[in-house]
């Protein structure tokens, strides 16, 4: 009869194997390929490891610059999405009353619909033959389509903010609902006005949630490639598109692998920073 101890192997071998073969191994293999100097021919011939690819990544100003731009864009998206989500979380916690749950679901429904479709909706709306331009032409506000609406970094940033706002509400809302109401009453009794209560009680207690929201948006946005692919065009591309290009169009896998490793390391560093700043466990169950 199988006890706990012998069942251990039944339970641990399948997930361990799956994660090692289809998660750890691919990343290690990618690391190995980034050390190969051979662009064409034998991709998996690793007899002469070299750091040439990393030399190219670090030497080519354009690559690091694009990485910097992507981080800045993600920073902007994270900050603005969090700032826009904050009043929503406040509204749900302190103003919405018993309907808060319903209002929250209403907010999350767009987030649960297809990511691709939501981004595509913006592309279809902002394109030169899209909804906005054709409407303005039809209404005779403009004669020729406004080209600046699509295919630039601004559009990518705005689209990403739009996509993330509902998600950013969640951790802030979670932090705010945990604020003890008696604290606010005590502050009022001691003579604090509405803004003083907000600034000195609500805000400090909601801040961990806001920081969590920021990182939950910021980190995945650094590695984003789908949104720039759809609404960014060539002038709005991000670092992720660079990685994608070297594995598709340019077909330079070793260099692409080195670029991907740089992104992976950066992401892990950012996560390590975030984990130090926020108590992950408090938000994991939401």
């Amino acid at each position: 009869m199988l006890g706990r101890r012998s069942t251990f192997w039944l339970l641990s071998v399948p997930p361990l194997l799956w994660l090692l073969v289809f998660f750890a191994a691919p990343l290690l293999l990618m690391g190995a390929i980034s050390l190969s100097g051979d662009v064409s021919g034998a991709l998996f011939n690793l007899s002469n490891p070299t750091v040439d690819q990393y030399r190219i990544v670090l030497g080519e100003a354009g690559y690091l610059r694009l990485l910097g731009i992507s981080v800045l864009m993600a920073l902007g998206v994270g900050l603005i999405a969090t700032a826009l989500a904050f009043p929503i979380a406040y509204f749900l916690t302190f103003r919405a009353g018993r309907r808060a749950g319903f209002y929250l679901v209403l907010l999350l429904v767009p987030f649960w619909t297809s990511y691709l479709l939501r981004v595509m909706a913006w592309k279809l709306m902002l394109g030169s033959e899209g909804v906005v331009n054709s409407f303005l032409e039809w209404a005779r506000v403009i004669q020729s389509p406004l080209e600046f609406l699509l295919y630039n970094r601004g559009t990518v940033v705005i689209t990403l903010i739009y996509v993330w706002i509902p998600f950013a509400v969640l951790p802030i809302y979670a932090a705010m609902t945990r604020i003890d109401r008696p604290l606010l009453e005590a502050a009022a009794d001691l003579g604090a006005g509405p803004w003083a209560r907000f600034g000195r009680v609500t805000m400090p207690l909601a801040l961990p949630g806001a920081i969590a929201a920021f990182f939950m948006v910021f980190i995945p946005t650094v590695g984003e490639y789908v949104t720039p692919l759809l609404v960014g065009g060539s002038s709005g591309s991000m670092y992720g598109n660079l990685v994608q290009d070297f594995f598709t169009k340019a077909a330079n896998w070793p260099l692409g692998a080195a670029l991907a490793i740089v992104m992976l390391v950066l992401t892990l560093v950012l996560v390590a920073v975030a984990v130090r700043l926020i108590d992950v466990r408090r938000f994991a169950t939401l």
Partner: protein
Amino acid sequence: MSVRIGPAGIGGSRVPLGTYYAALLLLLYLPLAVLLLFSLSSGGGLAFPIGPLSFDSYASVLQSDALLASARNSLEVAVGSSAAATVLGTMVAILLLRYRFPGQRLLVALAVLPLIVPFVVLGVALLILFRALGLPLSLWTVGTAHTVVAIPFVLLIVAARLNGVDRNLEDAAMDLGASYPVTLARVVMPMIAPALVSAWLTAFTVSFDEFALALFLAGPNPTFPVYLYSQLRFSSRFPVLIAMAVLLMVLTLVLVLVAERVRRLRA
């Protein structure tokens, strides 16, 4: 001192938060409403003025074999990968909460990390793996990737539930002669059933909409998001594509809402 603190917080001030919420909600729904509107437009394309409204696009969904095939592909991948992810993720959850062993934290980290690694990185890494193994790209390769990224969701949902299950019940079952696998199947599984259903539905929707990984890993036989992307150049196809997308979106939405409901059920 009596101060009207309203519900709480800045209670007394007159910041129009309700208006702000409503405006933001409108902005969030606007693109979706526009998509819906144009799926009903018989004019073709996405330009004003829109033609008379009709369900023609929805009818022509049924006539487009490639479109239907891509939707069926997405369905197959989602069913397969979500089942695999639910089984594997639940195993990790049990290992996390019912065992103590060396390397435990490493296993949990390995199971949670797919949530953190950027999809473009994971996508190209798996592309390299499949090339190295000599496996041609297919729905299997997409499903494999989706299983990896769905495992963290399953782990989080199931572990949260399993945490609240009394371990004495397991001990009791084993004292009465049940083996541990039987105890898991007949005592633990029924108690965490809502979490299992919710995890499975979540994994399903994660896979069903997934584009970033599928774009790298889909072979000649695309899933719906990949097919949708490949057809974006042809503006005359928009209404029928959007009609299909709207139908699938409704399906996903129903599943997500059911998953949320089930997750909040009490035992």
